[in-house]
């Protein structure tokens, strides 16, 4: 659909250009002898004339476009008419390029092209390196691409995380909670190495943006992502390089992949006589409770369901202006989104985003692109998890409310994130085939938080107020030069790139709080009697890299890519670690190999293999030996140890081998299959010295760890129907990953995050707890508790082995569109601490039934909680012993292992129905009023089925804390939206 629109836009320009060229050709042919004419038609496979298709001899830099009849007439100047063989190629947007070898021997040559439609968009140009792009059809690695512009027309997304979730093979998005504007993380392939934050690096329009999870004064220790401000409505597309094999040219930090976000920009004049267009979109929706707590199971569910029943409002207005001319294009947008989540009085965000993108072409050698994006938001998050104000604790998981609802409502956890992204990119072509690109950009990311607990709320604090500020200023500088040339009569094309990249980051962190206020209405920090937290941090670091990359292709069948990057990074106190990352890739378009004689039904068959290396830096100060800081306490200021580092520390190195097959058949089926092996070496493991050394609190980093990962990812697309009125596309993603810790120095295991372990022979961050082996009894046969294993044991992993999705897009009756996305996850564990806490607090019925049968509850409690029907078993009997064993190994909350359970789930993630009324409007109201009118309804998280009773898609902490932990965490809501979009 979008290609057709694009086609129409370009057509008029193209016709004009074609005519000019035609006239010029005719005129000049009268003057100059010994020229050559190449004439013909460009048609689609269905016989449709392709108007404005390119026909060119790339090596001679001459070409023309087809006219309204799909005809072209290319004049070859006499200087080139030398009986050499050259390649004449024809291309058209949305179609696959076709090449013919011709001999320039003068006279007139008649030649026609029949172009195949590029149904699976394999000709789309994608990024494959820091300064290189190629079409998907020949790329040496699997490059995933999300057409965000297309998706945001079908569905409404709160943020980047929702936009990416379920769309890409090998990439999983894990959210912290159902909080609006809450935190989230990527999980790439088999999880890369052991160091760093485990996250891909993110670029927006070529600027490296900060991708960190920040914890300020968070309600219940939940972190938030610095990417939360990015507005999906501003994004044109997202490309993802998934591992080191593809991302080596991005240097250090690229080991978990690279996410490249391109924002929307102006496309020039809309049509003849119309230089601009205004689009307006209005969204109206609500977040509602999807997970209704089972009142038969959870004793306090009824009241809690009533609290969660109050849904939240969503309202968004977006307006953008786009247009321009051949020399100047612009895109200006403003968007305001107000969204309330569950517990709407304390869980909302109000996000404003303004954007200006300008592209200028002062002459045909120069282009200048200016991008600026400012997002300012404010919002609140509801107190949950482990805090005395937790809604979950007070109204679901604990035995009674320790704080009443009115008091909790007065608790304020407010935040105001702002982000400015700005960049200037210049492209200059001083001579034919040489392109020099340079760019400068900034990511200014700031987060302010304010918390307030009113006086008289809690005896301990007697009023509390906290302020938190976190800022990142990150600058990106890029400079690169690319040269194209060919040898052996154009059979071999060579495309070397050399460049440099610099990233400079400043970060600051401040926190201040005060408690004990005399007057509840005066609660400025100065008015508090005491303070609890004062924090002041400031860091500055730089990274610089130089790279050289060379792409070589032979006969448009064999494509090879070789590259090397040398990186430098700040490491205070030691010499800057410099590290070299190589990469190499090969792809073969087997469908173009004549000797294979493949049937014509094979539209594309590509084999590819690539290898690359990347790394993760040690922390900025890991190379500093013993350092001291100042501590003040009890009226004394003194020197205490800050840290002990290892001057010999090196970055962790990640190597990846990726291979795959891309296949397209009958123009209706495509498959992209990729396998990979990853190894992480020199992983930095912190070893804690023995306590008697006096240094036990100061971990010493060593490059002793290693990890291996492998996996498989696949994307199948079927085009089942394709006609003027009906399109039916179905796609299916399946991924499998596994990973294993292979070395931890002289250790077998190392504690990692709460409840997890790094253990040789097991995947990273395995759950690790004492197992409940059975029941223990006293002399009278009464159950006394769980018999635990002597040692902690691995109990499964929070990262799923199997993930994937199924999506369908159905356009029917020409103007209706249905879209659906189902995601699934299998082979992972969740620590359901919410349920465990309920069991501890005697509000979880399955636990209570056993307790009642085992005589662990008093009669009043049994009476009060409707457990009288449970038969009390007699200690010592077989039934009693069997029930006790069952209770000890499945329910007894003293064993965490009992609540580490399967977290597999299937979710109907997205569903939408839209109607494009443009035709209708034009029919009845004429052509001039509206150029576009679309409306639709969509729903997110319509239904979820999980082996875990509550929401498995929430995560109390992130990697530094616990993974896969539901600890009184707000579940994901079900979201309904109605939207209407107008184009003027």
């Amino acid at each position: 659909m979008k290609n057709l629109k694009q086609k129409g836009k370009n057509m008029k320009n193209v016709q004009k250009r074609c005519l000019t060229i035609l006239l010029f050709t005719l005129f000049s042919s009268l003057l100059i002898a010994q020229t050559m004419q190449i004439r013909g038609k460009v048609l689609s496979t269905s016989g449709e004339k392709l108007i404005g298709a390119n026909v060119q001899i790339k090596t001679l830099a001459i070409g023309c476009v087809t006219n309204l009849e799909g005809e072209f007439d290319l004049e070859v100047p006499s200087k080139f008419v030398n009986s050499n063989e050259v390649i004449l190629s024809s291309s058209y947007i949305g179609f696959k390029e076709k090449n013919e070898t011709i001999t320039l021997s003068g006279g007139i040559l008649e030649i026609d092209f029949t172009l195949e439609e590029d149904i699976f968009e394999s000709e789309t140009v994608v990024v494959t390196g820091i300064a290189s792009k190629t079409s998907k059809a020949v790329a040496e690695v699997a490059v995933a691409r999300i057409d965000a512009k297309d998706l945001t027309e079908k569905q409404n997304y709160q943020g980047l995380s929702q936009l990416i979730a379920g769309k890409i093979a090998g990439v999983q998005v894990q959210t912290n909670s159902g909080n609006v504007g809450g935190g989230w993380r990527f999980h790439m392939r088999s999880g890369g190495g052991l160091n760093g934050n485990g996250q891909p690096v993110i670029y927006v329009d070529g600027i490296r943006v900060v991708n960190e999870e920040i914890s300020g004064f968070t309600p219940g220790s939940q972190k938030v992502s610095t990417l939360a401000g990015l507005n999906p409505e501003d994004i044109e597309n997202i490309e993802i390089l998934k591992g080191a094999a593809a991302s080596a040219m991005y240097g250090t930090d690229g080991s978990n992949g690279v996410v490249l976000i391109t924002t929307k920009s102006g496309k020039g004049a809309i049509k003849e006589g119309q230089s601009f267009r205004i689009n307006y979109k209005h969204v109206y929706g609500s977040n509602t409770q999807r997970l209704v707590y089972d009142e038969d199971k959870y004793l306090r569910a009824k009241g809690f369901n009533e609290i969660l029943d109050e849904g939240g409002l969503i309202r968004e207005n977006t307006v953008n202006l786009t247009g321009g001319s051949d020399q100047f294009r612009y895109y200006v947008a403003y968007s305001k989104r107000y969204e309330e989540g569950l517990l709407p009085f304390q869980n909302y965000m109000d996000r404003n985003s303004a954007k200006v993108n300008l592209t200028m072409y002062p002459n045909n050698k120069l282009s200048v692109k200016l991008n600026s994006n400012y997002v300012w938001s404010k919002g609140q998050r509801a107190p949950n998890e482990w805090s005395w104000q937790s809604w979950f604790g007070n109204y679901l998981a604990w035995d009674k409310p320790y704080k009443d609802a009115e008091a909790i409502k007065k608790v304020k956890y407010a935040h105001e994130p702002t982000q400015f992204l700005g960049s200037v990119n210049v492209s200059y072509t001083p001579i034919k085939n040489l392109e020099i690109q340079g760019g400068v950009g900034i990511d200014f990311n700031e987060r302010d938080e304010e918390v307030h607990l009113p006086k008289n709320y809690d005896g301990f604090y007697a009023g509390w107020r906290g302020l938190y500020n976190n800022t990142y200023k990150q600058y990106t500088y890029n400079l690169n030069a690319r040269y194209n040339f060919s040898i052996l009569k154009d059979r071999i094309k060579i495309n070397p790139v050399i460049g440099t990249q610099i990233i400079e980051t400043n970060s600051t962190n401040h926190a201040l709080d005060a408690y004990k206020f005399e007057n509840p209405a005066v609660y400025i920090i100065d008015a508090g009697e005491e303070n609890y937290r004062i924090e002041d941090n400031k860091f500055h670091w730089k990274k610089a890299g130089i790279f050289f990359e060379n792409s070589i292709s032979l006969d448009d069948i064999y494509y090879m890519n070789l590259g090397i990057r040398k990186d430098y990074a700040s490491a205070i106190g030691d010499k800057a670690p410099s590290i070299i990352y190589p990469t190499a890739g090969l792809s073969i378009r087997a469908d173009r190999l004549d000797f294979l004689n493949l049937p014509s039904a094979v539209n594309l068959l590509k084999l590819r293999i690539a290898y690359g290396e990347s790394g993760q830096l040690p922390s900025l100060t890991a190379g500093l030996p013993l350092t001291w800081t100042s501590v003040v306490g009890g009226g004394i200021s003194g020197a205490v140890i800050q840290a002990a580092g290892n001057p010999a520390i090196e970055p962790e190195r990640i190597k990846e081998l990726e291979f795959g097959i891309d296949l397209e058949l009958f123009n209706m089926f495509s498959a992209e299959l990729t396998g990979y092996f990853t190894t992480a070496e020199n992983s930095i493991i912190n070893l804690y010295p023995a306590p008697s050394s006096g240094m036990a609190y100061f971990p010493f980093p060593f490059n002793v760890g290693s990890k291996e990962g492998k996996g498989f990812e696949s994307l199948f697309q079927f085009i089942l129907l394709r006609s003027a009125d009906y399109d039916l596309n179905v796609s299916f993603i399946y991924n499998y990953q596994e990973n294993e810790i292979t070395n931890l120095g002289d250790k077998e295991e190392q504690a990692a995050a709460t409840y997890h372990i790094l253990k040789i022979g097991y995947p990273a961050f395995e759950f690790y707890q004492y197992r409940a082996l059975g029941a223990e009894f006293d002399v009278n046969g009464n159950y006394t508790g769980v018999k635990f294993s002597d040692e902690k044991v691995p109990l499964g992993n929070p990262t799923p082995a199997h993930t994937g999705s199924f999506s369908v897009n159905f356009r029917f009756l020409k103007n209706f569109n249905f879209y659906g996305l189902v995601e699934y996850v299998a082979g992972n564990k969740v620590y359901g601490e919410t349920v465990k806490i309920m069991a501890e607090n005697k509000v979880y019925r399955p636990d209570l039934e056993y307790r009642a049968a085992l005589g662990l509850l008093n009669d009043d409690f049994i009476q009060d909680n409707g457990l009288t029907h449970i038969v009390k078993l007699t200690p010592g009997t077989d039934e009693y012993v069997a029930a006790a064993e069952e209770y000890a190994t499945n329910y007894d909350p003293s064993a965490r292992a009992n609540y580490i359970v399967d977290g597999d789930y299937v979710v109907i993630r997205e569903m939408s129905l839209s109607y494009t009324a443009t035709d209708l409007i034009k029919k009845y109201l004429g052509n001039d009023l509206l150029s576009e009118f679309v409306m639709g309804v969509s729903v997110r998280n319509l239904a979820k089925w999980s082996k875990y009773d509550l929401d498995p898609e929430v995560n109390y902490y992130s990697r530094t804390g616990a993974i896969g932990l539901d600890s009184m965490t707000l579940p994901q809501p079900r979201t309904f939206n109605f939207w209407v979009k107008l184009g003027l």
Partner: protein
Amino acid sequence: MNKFKLYMLSFLMLFSLACEEFVTDVDPLIDRVTNESLESEEQLEWQLGGIEIQANDAVDHLFVMADLMSDALYYDESRLSGSTWTDGYGYLEYGTPLDDNRPSTTNYKMIALLRFTAEGVLDRVENKIQFSDTQESRNLKARAIFKASFYIGYSKYLLGSYFGIEKNNFGGTINLSAFIPRAELYDMAVADFNKSLEAIQNLENSDEEKNYNIRLINSFLARMALIEGDYSAAESYANKGLLQGDDALLAKYDSKLECSYLDAAYYGSSNVGFGLADKFVDDYVSNDPEELKRISYDQFDGIDGNKFYRQNKYNDNNGANVEITLMSWQEVALIKAESAIRSGGNGDELVNLVRASHGMSSTVNNLNLEGLLVEREKELLLTGIRLLDQVRTGTYHNSGKWECFPIPLEETSQNNNF
């Protein structure tokens, strides 16, 4: 072509150098200094402050956990509201600490960190720092050696007093050494104390400070002798120890360095960590209301429907500013009294002097050994001494159980001597 290669190569090399130069040019860290920068006279006061902070940070946690193990504080989930099984407190309460329990592991680490810090200062003072030849500098050096040596000795005293390899085999390890029994650790501590005494002799024109510190060291030597049961040595050291009116040695805390007694044994009104043993109120205070001057407590309703007590000696009434007494003339007086009673004499006068120092008018008369131990219990309430007293006098309530904290698993698993 060769020329071109040469140009390229030079360009790349220059660029490499420029990159390296560029990335190392960053703002200095504002939160730390290097170890080398401490090797100057100007930085010494700051380091001496660091030793004291490290000591204060170690002892509060050690003492509150030792008091929990003794009969002074108790932990009971079924009685104290809001008290939850954290960090294996119950194991300490019943004298069954595990070697991977956090409280004992923390204590072990903190004591070693104190020693490491003090040893570092001593090494810099003796071997690295160039002192100028002025009286001020000489005095600074003397004070530094005194303080560093004292805390090195003190850390060894703590290690030998509160840790063991078995339930009543006291001692510990230093720098991954083999197990060092209590007697040996005490000998090492005495050597360190002697070194600090030697250093303090070098103080010029400061007799008052010099003599006070000599008395202070002797007071610790007296306590160690008492723990070892050498009463005559205890008496002779005590006679050279702190005198009535001498300042106590205090560990000071505030909101920036919070005292563990507040955290563990003084929660908010609705939550209580450890309770104060009933006998302090039901016996000692009811028998003599004047004891309220030494025994401060609050009363609450417990889960079981009965009342319970919480210590109020350390509280946040004055912010979080609290002080733990590490050594006082009162303790020295009680050591003298105990020695007197043990050798058939009378300690009443000394004990009454101690009581009077709190403004108590009631007196003791013909106090026996048992009575003296009760006096010690009240006078030295919540200073970590009670466990040592119970053990040395055979009155430990968890008879046959652990009388000390186990050397932590983190140590035994990494130390090849185990």
